[in-house]
């Protein structure tokens, strides 16, 4: 369950757990060490204190100067007990019979009282004293007691006059230890307060893009390709490389998707082209016979005028069929001269009436040599189609732009290309229309037969060029690229 958590939580949690456990481990070992040191300190300071005081107490005992002994014992308590050195709880001088000779706290250990009466611990301690030799320091920490006792003999020149007993209350030890712990905890808390948010931030920083990648990868199967938010992780480590790789992959997939769409579209158009061409041929053959027959019939003088009227009707119908089929059957297999600037002037002249009628602002940008090695008649057809469409689309007071120039190939591969841009300020084309724009009868425009763009597409395709339409900057744009070749080329059609 825990292991299935999102990295978003798992990484910071894991980091936090590591940090906290490390800190606890360190603090724990520090505390254990501190406790040992403290206890060691206590024994050491007890022995030190005893070794200083015992010689000073010897003459007091020798001369039975109880008050001086008391003053000596009181010395360590004169200072305030704030010092870091463990403060002894009691200093007791025992005489040779282990009676209290004097103590620093006579109310607790009165003069001449038996030391052993204070409890079992004391009895055991006294029995240890009896067995200890002259110079031996006795260290006694009774179990289940809050007291530590250290006994230092008061002896000189082989004579022992008594024993100095120093007792410590472990509660004092605990107090000092608690102070240490408090300080350690404060430092730990401070460190955690700094490290934990930093680690949480770092974890989130790290996992947020991973989570995004993961989510988007999951959606790829639903054909939703999204790149990551830019700048989410600007570093070049492995995670950064992963994001870069993901973005690259998404870009590649998008390009592939686009290409596939294009291919499907052009294949569909090609299929339609083949179909229409087949149908046109099939129609053209009988149509020619039919028209010849009608023509022959019309040569006859004895025809009933009523029949004659019907013949005219049939002939007009047949001619309409011929025109439509002719339009469908784009013929590029024609011998023609190369395109010249005069052709473009002609086109402009042809347009003039429409331009004037709709008060179109016509922008005419040409950057061409005197002749361009492309078939003039086909180019004229394309340009007139596109420009008339543009004028119609631009509407009254609109703007139509034509930009024709020769573009040198990118890099060194391929021939130079003729680039044609036709742009108008009309209503943008609908998405659904864009998808089927170059198919026959796709046009929605009233008065058009719906074959203009189809014909244009056929011509461009047969000239090995490309055509694309798009909405850009509140304008509708048609881009055509045609590779330049021999002016008299016979581009193979179907």
């Amino acid at each position, binding site marked *: 369950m825990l292991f299935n958590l999102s990295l978003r939580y798992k990484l910071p949690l894991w980091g936090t757990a590591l940090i906290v456990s490390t800190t606890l481990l360190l603090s724990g070992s520090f505390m254990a060490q501190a406790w040992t040191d403290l206890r060691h300190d206590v024994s050491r300071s007890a022995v030190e204190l005893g070794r200083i005081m015992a010689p000073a107490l010897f003459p007091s005992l020798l001369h*039975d100067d109880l*008050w001086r002994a008391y003053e000596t014992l009181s010395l360590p308590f004169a200072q305030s007990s704030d010092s870091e050195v463990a403060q002894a709880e009691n200093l007791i001088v025992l005489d040779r019979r282990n009676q209290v000779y004097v103590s620093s706290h*006579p*109310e607790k250990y009165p*003069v*001449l009282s038996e030391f052993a009466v204070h409890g079992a611990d004391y009895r055991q301690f006294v029995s240890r004293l009896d067995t200890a030799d002259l110079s031996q320091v006795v260290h006694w920490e009774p179990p289940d007691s809050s007291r530590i006792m250290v006994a230092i003999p008061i002896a000189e020149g082989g004579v022992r006059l008594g024993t100095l007993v120093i007792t410590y209350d472990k509660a004092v030890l605990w107090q000092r230890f608690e102070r240490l712990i408090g300080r350690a905890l404060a430092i730990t808390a401070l460190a955690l307060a700094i490290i934990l948010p930093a680690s949480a931030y770092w974890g989130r920083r790290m996992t947020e893009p991973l989570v995004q990648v993961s989510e988007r990868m999951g959606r790829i199967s639903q054909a939703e390709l999204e790149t990551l938010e830019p700048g989410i992780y600007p570093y070049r480590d492995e995670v950064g490389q992963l994001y870069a790789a993901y973005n690259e992959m998404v870009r590649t997939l998008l390009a592939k998707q686009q290409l596939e769409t294009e291919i499907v579209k052009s294949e569909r158009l090609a299929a339609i082209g083949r179909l229409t061409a087949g149908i046109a041929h099939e129609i053209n053959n009988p149509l020619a016979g039919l028209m010849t027959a009608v023509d022959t019939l019309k040569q006859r003088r004895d025809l009933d005028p009523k029949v004659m009227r019907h013949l005219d009707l049939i002939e007009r119908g047949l001619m309409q069929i011929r025109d439509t089929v002719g339009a469908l059957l784009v013929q590029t297999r024609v011998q023609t001269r190369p395109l010249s600037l005069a052709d473009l002037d002609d086109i402009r002249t042809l347009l003039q009436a429409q331009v004037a009628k709709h008060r179109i602002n016509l922008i005419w940008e040409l950057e061409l040599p005197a002749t361009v090695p492309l078939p003039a008649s086909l180019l004229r057809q394309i340009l007139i189609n596109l420009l008339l469409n543009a004028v119609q689309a631009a509407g009254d007071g609109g703007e139509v732009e034509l930009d024709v120039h020769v573009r040198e190939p990118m890099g060194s591969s391929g021939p130079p290309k003729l680039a044609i841009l036709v742009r108008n300020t009309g209503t943008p084309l609908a998405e659904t229309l864009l998808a089927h724009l170059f198919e026959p009868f796709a046009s929605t425009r009233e008065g058009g037969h719906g074959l203009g763009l189809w014909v244009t597409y056929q011509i461009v395709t047969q000239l090995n060029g490309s055509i694309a339409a798009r909405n850009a900057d509140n304008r509708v744009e048609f881009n055509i690229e045609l590779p330049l070749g021999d002016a008299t080329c016979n581009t193979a059609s179907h």
Partner: protein
Amino acid sequence: MSLPYRLRLVVSLFVALFLASSAFASKATDTPVRFAMTPAFLHDQHAMLETWRSYLAERLGRPVEFVQRDRYRETMDLLQQQRVEFAWLCDYPYVALGKEVRLMAVALNNGRPTYRSYLVVPASDQTSMSIADLKGAVFAYADPHSNTGYLVPRFELRNQGVDSELFFRRTFFTWSHRKAVSAVAAGLAQGTAVDSYVWDSLAQVAPELTAKTRIVWKSEEYGFPPIVAHANVSTEDFQAMQRVLLGMQDDETGRAILARLHLDGFIEGSPQLYDSVAAMMKALGEH
């Protein structure tokens, strides 16, 4: 000091002439007066003592040295060996020294040249009414030559027909009245007898200490601890010092020092003040 003035002058001139040393020329006024101070009062007020010392030096026109000893026996030795000229003693050493010393001044304590012995027990002891109730106690004496701190309690016990050596379980000396009070306050001793003047002064300067104790019994009045001069001190020096001491209450500095001593002034006093002490000593076979 014991040389007649004329001879001293001759000697001085002689030395001055031959050694051409001006330092010796003024020997008479440069010789310090040595004054022993004892625990008869709170003699650990060092700043006050320094003020008093310079006051005396200024009034006498001579340097004054204070010699402090905790034990009366040591002070008595200093006097007997003439290592000090003057001393503030307790009644007992004064009586004991007899003709070796001359009474020079007696302080006025609450307007009278007297004081008492207080029997003091820890404040926690609410039952003891007299020294007789302290049988088997640990008892603190101030000094074996103290009147109020040693003589009086033993005299009291003797009057009750008790041997003080057997009466208490243990006794010890603290060598100062103040420390005797401390011993009782700390619970080290279950009783002590102290100088009423010291206890009353302590009640003002260290009330937290006296608050831990309780006065059970007050003795009759005795002559206040006297200031004495060694018998050999010249009359001029004796009178000069006596004049200065008795005149302390007449000037502001002197009164300020007296206030810090918790005293009203000094009078000449009379040796009869100490007759009752002498009687006690006699009764205990110590005089």
